[in-house]
C-alpha cells in the first residue's frame, strides 16, 4: 500500500516530464535515423507523381513537385531540433553573461540594458524576419538571428536575479573575506540562477521551433532545399484548397514537438519552483 502511494506521488511529480521526455527522445531518434525511416529521397522531384493524395506508397501524399511529404516531414525534424537546441544554448550562454555583467557592474548596466531595450522595442518576429533577410539564407545565420532576438529576455531574467542575490548575506560575507568579483559572480551568484535558467531553456525550445517555422513558412532564413516543417506548409499553402494534405501533416509534426517541449518545461518548472504552480 505504502509502495503504491509512493508511486502515485512520484508520477504526480515527474509523470509529465517522463511522458514528454519519451516523446522527445522518439523525435530525436527519428531525426537521427531519418535516412532509415524515410521511404523516399526527400528532395527527389518527380513531376509524374505530383499532387498525389496519401496512399500506401506515399504515406502523406506528394507535393506540387512530386516530392514525398512523409520523407520531407521526417527529415524536417532534423533542422527544427538542430536550430532550436543550438539557438537556446547560445542564447543562454551569451544572455547569462550579459545579465551577470549588467546586474553586477552598474556601469555595464546602463549601456547593456538600453541596447536590450532597443532590441525589445521591435516585435520579435518582425525583428527576426528583418535580421534574417539582412544576413541572407543559411542555417548558421538563422541560428545567429534567433539567438539575438532571444537575448533581451534571458539577460533581463538573469539581471533581475543578480540584483536581488547581490544583496544577500552570503555574497556580503564572501566580499568581506576578500573574494574577487570574478569568484563572487561564478561561485556565489551564478549557481543561484540555475533553476530559472533551466525553466527558461525548456520554454525557449518550444518558442524557437514556432518562430523558426514561421520564418521558413514565409520563405526566409533557410536554404529552400532543406526540408523544414514551416517550409513544407509554405509551399503547400497555395494549393491547400484542393490538396489540404500538403499542409496538414507538417503542422501536426510542429504541434507534437512544441507540445512535448512545453509540457517538459511546465514539468521542470513545477519540480524546481513549486510556488509557481
Amino acid at each position, binding site marked *: 500500500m505504502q509502495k503504491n502511494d509512493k508511486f502515485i506521488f512520484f508520477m504526480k511529480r515527474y509523470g509529465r516530464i517522463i511522458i514528454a521526455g519519451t516523446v522527445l527522445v522518439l523525435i530525436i531518434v527519428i531525426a537521427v535515423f531519418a535516412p532509415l525511416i524515410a521511404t523516399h529521397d526527400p528532395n527527389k522531384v518527380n513531376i509524374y507523381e505530383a499532387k498525389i493524395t496519401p496512399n500506401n506508397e506515399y504515406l502523406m501524399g506528394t507535393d506540387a513537385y512530386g516530392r514525398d511529404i512523409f520523407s520531407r516531414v521526417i527529415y524536417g525534424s532534423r533542422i527544427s531540433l538542430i536550430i532550436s537546441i543550438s539557438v537556446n544554448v547560445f542564447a543562454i550562454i551569451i544572455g547569462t553573461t550579459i545579465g551577470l555583467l549588467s546586474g553586477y557592474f552598474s556601469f555595464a548596466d546602463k549601456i547593456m540594458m*538600453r*541596447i536590450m*531595450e*532597443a*532590441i525589445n*522595442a*521591435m*516585435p*520579435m*518576429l*518582425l*525583428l527576426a*524576419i*528583418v*535580421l534574417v*533577410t*539582412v544576413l*541572407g539564407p543559411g542555417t548558421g545565420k538563422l541560428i545567429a538571428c534567433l539567438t539575438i532576438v532571444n537575448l533581451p529576455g534571458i539577460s533581463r531574467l538573469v539581471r533581475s536575479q543578480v540584483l536581488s542575490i547581490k544583496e544577500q548575506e552570503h555574497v556580503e560575507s564572501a566580499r568581506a573575506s576578500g573574494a574577487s568579483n570574478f569568484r563572487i559572480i561564478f561561485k556565489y551568484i551564478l549557481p543561484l540562477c540555475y533553476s530559472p535558467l533551466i525553466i527558461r531553456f525548456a520554454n525557449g525550445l*518550444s518558442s524557437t521551433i*514556432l518562430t523558426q*517555422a*514561421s520564418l521558413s*513558412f*514565409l520563405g526566409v532564413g533557410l536554404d529552400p532545399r532543406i526540408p523544414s516543417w*514551416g517550409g513544407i*506548409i*509554405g509551399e503547400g*499553402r497555395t494549393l*491547400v*484548397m484542393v490538396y*489540404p494534405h500538403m*499542409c*496538414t501533416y*507538417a*503542422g501536426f509534426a*510542429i*504541434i507534437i514537438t*512544441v*507540445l512535448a517541449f*512545453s*509540457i517538459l518545461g*511546465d514539468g521542470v518548472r513545477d519540480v524546481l519552483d513549486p510556488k*509557481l504552480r
Partner: protein
Amino acid sequence: MIRFIIKRLLSVVPVLIIVVTLVFFLMRVIPGDPATLMLGDDAEPEDILAFKEMMGLNDPMIKQYIDYVKNILTGDWGDSLYYKTPVFDNIINRMEPTILLMLYSTLLSVCIGIPFGIIAAKYRNTVVDYGLTTISIFGNSIPVFWLGIMMIYLFGVKMMWFPVQGYIFIEKGGLWQALYSITLPSFALGFQHISSIARYTRSTMLDVMNNDYVRTARAKGLTETKVYYKHALKNSLAPVVTLVGFSMAGMLGGSVVTETVFNIPGMGKLAYDSLMRRDYTQEQAIILFVAILFILTNILLDIIYKWLDPRIEFD
C-alpha cells in the same frame, strides 16, 4: 503620477535613438542593390547611376545617416522606393486592417480567455480544470499560420461560412463587412493568446483566493458567488491587463504572418512585401513606426498598472 509619466516618457529617448541607428544600418547591409532591383536587371548602367544619385545612395554612409536622422526629426520620412509615394502615407493607408485585426483578436482572446481561466480556477483540480489546461497548452503549441490555413480550408472552402482571403475596407462595406472579412484571421491570431490569458487568469485567481480579505468576505457570510466575482475577480485582473497589453504588442509581429496567409493589405503585409522588394525606405519607416507604437503601448501599460495598483514601483 504626472512626474511618473514624464519620467517614463523621457526614458524612451535613448532607446529610440538606438532603434533609429540600428534600423538605419541594418537596412544598408541588406544584400541586393535596390537600384538594380527597382529598375530591373536589364537597366542601363547610366540609369542606375542616376537613380542612385537621386536617392542619395552614393553619399558616404555617415552623411546618409545624418540626413536620415534630420529628416525623421522634421517629419519627412521619405518616399517609398517602390510606390514612389511618401512612406508615412503608405503606412497610414495600411493601418486600418491591422489595427482592427489587433482589436478584434484582443476582444476574442479576452472574452474567451478570462471566463475560461475563472472556470478553471473555480473548479481547481477537477476534470474541468484539467480539460481547460490541456486545451490551453495545445493553443500555445499551434503555429498561427498553420491554424490560419486549416481554418481557410475548413470554414472558407468546405463550409463557406467566411471569406477565404482579403479585407473589405470600412469605407467600402461598412464596419460589419470589415469585421466579417477578418473573423478568421482574428481568431487565428488570437488563439494562442486565448490560452495564455486563460492560464494566467487561473493562476492569479488562485493566488488572490488565498488572501486574507477573501477569508474575511467569506467569514462575513457572503455567498460564494459574491466572494468570487466581487472581491476576488477585481483584484486578480490587474496583472491580466498587463498580459493583454503584451499580447496586443506581440500581435503586431504576428500580423506579418497572419496578413500574409489571409492576404490582408495591412501593415504586416506591407512590412513583409517591402523587405522582399528591398524597398528599404519603406521598411525603415515601418520598423520605426512599429517600434514607437510598441514603446508607447508599454508606457501606457505601466501607467494603467500604476493606476490599478499604486504600490508598484518602477526603477
